[in-house]
């Protein structure tokens, strides 16, 4: 019986056996992350759902983590790749601390590092299947940026990943302004998260809001948003068109 090695087309640029090593599709995914700059720093929100295809498998996934003293990272996409990124960043921060030179990596530096990592992985056809949001404050300077799985990166006053781009960004473009207070910022984020909850099938009603300022970062306890279902039209939808 002939042993069949895994077949690759002759003109493939990839090395042998490499298919089994590359990320081809995501498995456990998180949905959108939304973030904005406010008066004292950055506010970021993400729900706590981890979907396994169309099943809502995990309901307590923390998709936002503090990085070093000055940054906050939020991720959507493959959860295992997010954990891998946290591992890389851990090492990065550790080595930075070991210099013990009084300086620490700020959000701009971490964002740059992530951009290089993501872009290089995509060039090797083995991407980290995430869309990342990186926000932070250092020396009074607020910074908010995003990196996608193919390495597209930019910074802006408000960013979102995934569905958030289509549903939350329009609201933020209308209603964001410089020097939002903390309460206004949270209210605006909750408005966006509520629309996402209504219209994104992989969103769940359990979210965390994280804030980072010069003093440091805090991630709130999970809580849920109030939703409204009492439209009279919902009570009897086919009232005017019986049988439709």
């Amino acid at each position, binding site marked *: 019986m002939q042993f069949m090695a895994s077949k690759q087309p002759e003109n493939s640029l990839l090395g042998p056996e490499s298919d089994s090593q590359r990320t081809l599709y995501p498995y456990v995914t998180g949905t959108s992350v939304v973030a904005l700059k406010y008066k004292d720093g950055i506010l970021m929100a993400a729900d706590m759902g981890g979907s396994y295809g169309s099943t809502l498998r995990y309901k307590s996934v923390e998709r936002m983590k503090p990085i070093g003293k000055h940054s906050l990272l939020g991720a959507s996409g493959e959860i295992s790749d997010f954990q891998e990124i946290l591992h890389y960043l851990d090492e990065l921060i550790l080595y930075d601390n070991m210099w013990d030179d009084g300086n620490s990596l700020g959000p701009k530096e971490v964002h740059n590092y992530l951009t290089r990592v993501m872009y290089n992985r995509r060039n090797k056809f083995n991407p980290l299947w995430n869309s990342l949001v990186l926000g932070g404050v250092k020396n009074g300077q607020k910074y908010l940026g995003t990196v996608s799985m193919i390495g597209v990166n930019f910074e802006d006053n408000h960013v979102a990943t995934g569905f958030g781009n289509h*549903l939350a*960004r*329009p609201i933020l473009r209308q209603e964001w302004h410089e020097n939002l207070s903390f309460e206004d910022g949270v209210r605006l984020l909750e408005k966006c998260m509520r629309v996402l909850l209504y*219209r994104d099938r992989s969103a769940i009603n359990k979210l965390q809001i994280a804030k980072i300022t010069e003093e440091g970062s805090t991630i709130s306890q999970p809580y849920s948003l109030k939703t409204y279902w009492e439209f009279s039209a919902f009570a009897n939808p086919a009232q005017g068109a019986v049988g439709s």
Partner: protein
Amino acid sequence: MSNSVIEVPPKGGFSFDLCKRNEMLAKKGLNPPSFRKTGTTIVGLIFQDGVILGADTRATEGPIVCDKNCEKIHYMAPNIYCCGAGTAADTEAVTDMVSSQLQLHRYHTGRESRVVTALTLLKKHLFNYQGYVSAALVLGGVDVTGPHLHTIYPHGSTDTLPFATMGSGSLAAMAVFESKYKEGLTRNEGIELVTEAICSGIFNDLGSGSNVDVCVITKAGKEYLRNHLQPNPRTYTSSKGYSFPKKTGVGKSCLLLQFTDKRFQPVHDLTIGVELGARMISIDDKPVGLQIWDTAGQESFRPITRSYYRGALLVGL
């Protein structure tokens, strides 16, 4: 036994005979031309007195905007209007067809058309064509039973909703509706909300753009506000118009005549090609002969006059 082929008249609907051929051509790299689509943001909402429909006005053909100000709110009946997204030809044809059917039905019954009738006729037609008639519609109107708003998808399914959005800009518009809609809106609040939703689509979606059309339907009648808002005017237009520098009739031949002959002729013929004038002047007590070429200003003489610039010591502009 004769092998007779019975001629059966073709039944209605699409004939899928050429599908295999198209598939083969597509594999070889020949892609069919793109349809004129209406990219689009279309919305509808129910307010306290009736229904308000809204739409943007951009029609796209692939990446190009082929119509900057098209009409996407179609007439169905005096009390029923329908916004269309998807392939422009499909939405126009299907709404036209059902509008005619409704008219005939009105003649037959002697009554005002009902929204549910339009709904049923549209969904029947679309389901029959299994989604190939690419029309996604927002149907709204007011009849004896009250105000109604429905969405109809290309495959024939329908929804009855208090607020609805369709088209490529539907998510941007829905974000506005989901955060701001409430029941019992007044007419002005409703128009403002619809305009805001369409603007959200116009500025956040590439398939939508240009102006906002609004249609308000109540028991009393309809109000079609064509180009209710024009948030994309042409910038930098001069109210005085533009004038480009003249190259003919500015006085070149006159100037030459004055310089060489010391006379003025008020009426000149148009200079053909190039004319030569000569004059002697003295510079530093040395006599210098000037050879002056008067070139024609007309565009048509450009290739001729161009050759005279070579080797010129001086050019007068």
